[in-house]
Every structure is written in C-alpha cells, then in structure tokens.
C-alpha cells in the first residue's frame, strides 16, 4: 500500500497543474498582505467604520498577523475546493483518459487498494496545500505584521480573542479545514471514478460545491428547513466555530472557550460521514467498473 501511495504521489506531483494551486494560493495571500500593508486601516474602516461614532477603534492594532490569517482563510477556504478538485477530479479519470487505467488494473493489486491509494494521495495533496497556506497566511503574516488580539466580525456581533488564546485555534481550524477539503477530494474521487475524462469530474465537483454553498448561504427559510441541514457545505465553515468565543454571565469572554462546541463536533461528524460514504461508493463503483480505456 505504501509503495502504491508513493507511486500515486509521484504521479500527482509530476504534473505541472498540481503546482497551479500552490502558486495561486501564494500569489493570492501575498496580494492580500501587500494590500493590508498599504491600506489595512482603510480596509478595516470600510467594514467597521459605522462603529466609529460609538467607539475608538484601534485599527492599527487589529491589522495584525493573526487577524490577517483569519481574513485569508475567510476569503480563501471557499475557493480552495476548486483547487482540490483540479487534482482529485483527475486522479482516476485522467488515467482513463490517457489509457493507462486498464494497464494499471491489470497489475496484481486489488482495485480497492488502488482506489484507496489514490484517495490517500489526494489527502496528502490536500494536507500539503493547507500546510503551504498556513506557511503564507499565518507564518508570513506574523513575520510581516506581528501578533495581536483577533477581532472576528459576525453579522450580528463581534468577538475579540486575546493574543495568547489564538494559536491553538488556528491549529484546530486548519485541522477542521483539512477534513472539509478531504471531503471535497472524496467527492471528486467518486466523480472521477464515474467518468472517463478529467474535465467532467473537476467541473462537476466545482458545480456541486457552488450550488450547495449558495443554498447553504441564501438564508431562504424553505431551503433552511428542508435542504440546508443535509448539505455538506453547511458544515464546511465549521472551522470558524473555533473563533467564536464564549462569554460569562458578565458578558466577558472566557479564555480558551468555544461558543458552540457541539455544533463543531456535529460538523466534524457530518463531514467524516460524507467522506466515508463517498470513498466507499468510489471503491464499490470502481470494483464493478468495466474498464474499457
């Protein structure tokens, strides 16, 4: 299995398209950092300026490395599934398209092992992508802007997390994001198994995520009641839950707390369940697949 995984990883990282995601993420984050270095205060004032009449808002202090990492994740994690689909959607169908799949399954390895090796290779790619993102979004932002308290603006309230209470939340958030992106990879894998060309699974994954995200975020009561609870995209933003802090009876934040841990655990449960369903379905379909290409 380890050998198979190495071969699959070699195949992934040999393709130039794999590095598009790494390049895009680095470029995007660097552009945000440059913009915030130049106009961080203006950007913050655009969002929070309506509070200027009531409070003295220390924009310069808010514009720190920890907050910038949160902003990057907020802007980027919605789009990263597209980058994951670019690789995971191609992982089986790409070989079918090139005509190497028939050759591959003729080797003395089970089809289950083959699909699982491809899945774990996609998982490795996802983790590498997130590590790369963490390097730029968190480490580089800290180097450039320093650390400080994180201010998280929700639609109805604002949370402030003390500097000493932030770092573990990022580890948890990146861990959660890894699970969410692995789910996307497993969906891409399933579509890839069902298809004989690369474009279909990639575009299919992206379309499913866009449609489901729209339904999740539209706030239409009908959808909220009958569709939203069953869509995996509803739970993919769960990483943010680590940045919603609980308060005591006096309204003051409690260090080390999370406002709604059960919701985060539920989201993890839903994401893991969907992933297992997609991977199992991929294995079952691939085992019965009539490989003609």
């Amino acid at each position, binding site marked *: 299995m380890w050998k198979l995984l190495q071969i699959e990883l070699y195949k992934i990282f040999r393709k130039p398209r794999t590095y598009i995601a790494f390049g895009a993420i680095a470029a995007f984050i660097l552009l945000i950092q440059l913009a915030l270095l130049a106009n961080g205060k203006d950007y913050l004032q655009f*969002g929070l300026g*309506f*509070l200027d*009449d*009531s*409070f*003295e*808002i*220390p924009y310069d*202090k*808010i514009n720190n490395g920890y907050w910038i990492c949160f902003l990057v994740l*907020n802007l980027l994690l*919605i789009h990263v599934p597209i980058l994951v689909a670019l690789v995971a959607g191609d992982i089986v169908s790409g070989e079918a398209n090139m005509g190497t799949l028939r050759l591959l399954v003729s080797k003395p390895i089970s089809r289950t092992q083959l699909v699982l090796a491809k899945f774990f290779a996609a998982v490795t790619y996802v983790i590498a992508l997130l590590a790369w993102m963490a390097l730029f979004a968190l480490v580089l932002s800290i180097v450039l802007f320093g650390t*400080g*308290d994180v*201010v998280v*603006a*929700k*639609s*109805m*309230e*604002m*949370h*402030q997390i*003390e*500097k000493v209470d932030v770092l573990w939340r990022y580890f948890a958030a990146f861990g959660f994001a890894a699970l969410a992106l692995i789910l996307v990879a497993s969906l891409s894998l399933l579509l890839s198994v069902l298809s004989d060309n690369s474009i279909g699974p990639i575009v299919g994954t992206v379309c499913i995520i866009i449609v489901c995200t729209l339904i999740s*975020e539209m*706030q239409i009561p009908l959808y*909220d009641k009958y569709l*939203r*609870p069953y869509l995996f995209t*509803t*739970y993919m*933003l*769960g*990483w*943010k*839950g680590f940045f*919603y*802090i609980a*308060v005591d009876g*006096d*309204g*003051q*934040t409690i*260090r080390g707390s999370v*406002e*709604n841990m*059960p*919701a985060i655990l*539920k*989201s993890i449960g839903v994401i893991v369940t969907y992933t297992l369903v997609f991977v199992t379905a991929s294995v079952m379909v691939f085992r019965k697949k009539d490989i003609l290409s």
Partner: protein
Amino acid sequence: MKKTILAIIMLCLLTPFVLYAQDVSQLVEKVKAKIEQVKDYTASGKMKTNVSFLKVPVANVVIYFKKPNQLKIKNEKGISFVPKGTVSINLNNVLSSGSYTALDAGVDKVAGIPVRVVKLLPSDENADVVLSTLYIDEARQVILRSRTTTRDNGSYELEMSYAKYVSFGLPDKIIFSFNTKEYKLPKGMTFDFDDGSAVKQEAGKTKNKKGRAEITINSYSINKGLADDVFK
C-alpha cells in the same frame, strides 16, 4: 402701598431660591476646586465593556489625563474598544469652563449616600452639552453620579465610587453608561458559521443600544508630569 406689599411678598418668596442657588454654586465651586488640584494623572486599572454585540475580554488599561481636558484610555497589551464618550470621565470637561448656571434640584440618594442634585445649564447656546445633572456628596464634596445630555452624541451617565483618592476627587471605580449604534453586517460579507443548532439570537438583543463600561482603578500617579505625546 399695594405695590410695596406685593414687592415685599415677592422678595420673601424668591429669596430662598436665590440663597439655594448661591449654595449649590458654592458647592459646585468646592467640588471644582478639589478636582483642580489634579494637573495630570496616570491611572492603571481594568475595563469591563458590556455591549450586547461586543464579546470582549476584560482589558488592562492605562488612563492618561492632563489639564485642561486631555484624556486618553490605552490598552498597552491588547485591543480595547473604548467608548467615545469616556472622555467625560474627566469631570473637568463639565466644570472647568465655568460658564454655566447651577440650579438646585433637591436631594436624593446614590448607593445609600445622601446627595445634592445640581443641574448645570451651559451659558453657551452652541455648546455640545445641553444639560448636566450632578449628584454631589456634600460631605465629601465629590460627584457620585452625573448625567449628561449632548446635542449630537446622545446622553451618557457616570457613576463613581471613591476610596483612597477621594481627597483629589478621583474615583476608584467608574461605571460609564452610553448609547451605541445598531450593529449589523451583511451575512454575505461575514460568511458566519451556523449549522442551525446554535441558539438563535433573541429578537432585538443586538438592537439594545445601551452600553456599559466599568473601569476599576488600581492606582493613580498624580501630578508627576505627563508629555503631550501620550495623547496622540
């Protein structure tokens, strides 16, 4: 003859009010004199902010004051959302101008302490402060509560308790109540995480436009000199 009698009656009726007005003016002057002993101070303490839409930790703050009316609250280590009107915790703002009319509004009690209620009406018609009501502890000559109504910035209330620094008229604890604007950002901008299991916001909870900041002072450093730079 009738006119003379009428004049005497009027004089008898109005004299107590004039005397009272003189009394409260003297009282306000005594309070003012006490406050004016302080040319500058640096105070360290803790600030608790209680606003319906703000979830913030207790902040360690340093308050800088310099005569006549420079005041700055800073959180050296972290971020603090300091309510705009906290500058009014410097009572010099209210009293130092001297151009006001003090009216006696009777007696009352604040935290069980008997106080004289004084209303200050600014002489300047264009002043931002329209009316200040002071609840003055006559025995200690300090203000325990003040209510200020402004032309543009709503009204705010201060409640103060005194201990170690009462001789300077400086409080050990200040509760500042103020008005806030409604907080609301578009969900399309914030992308909130909501799996549906979260306790829904009580209707109108974040529309509560009253905020409260409680500052507890640990220590003051009084009249030691203060550079203007700290107020920038």
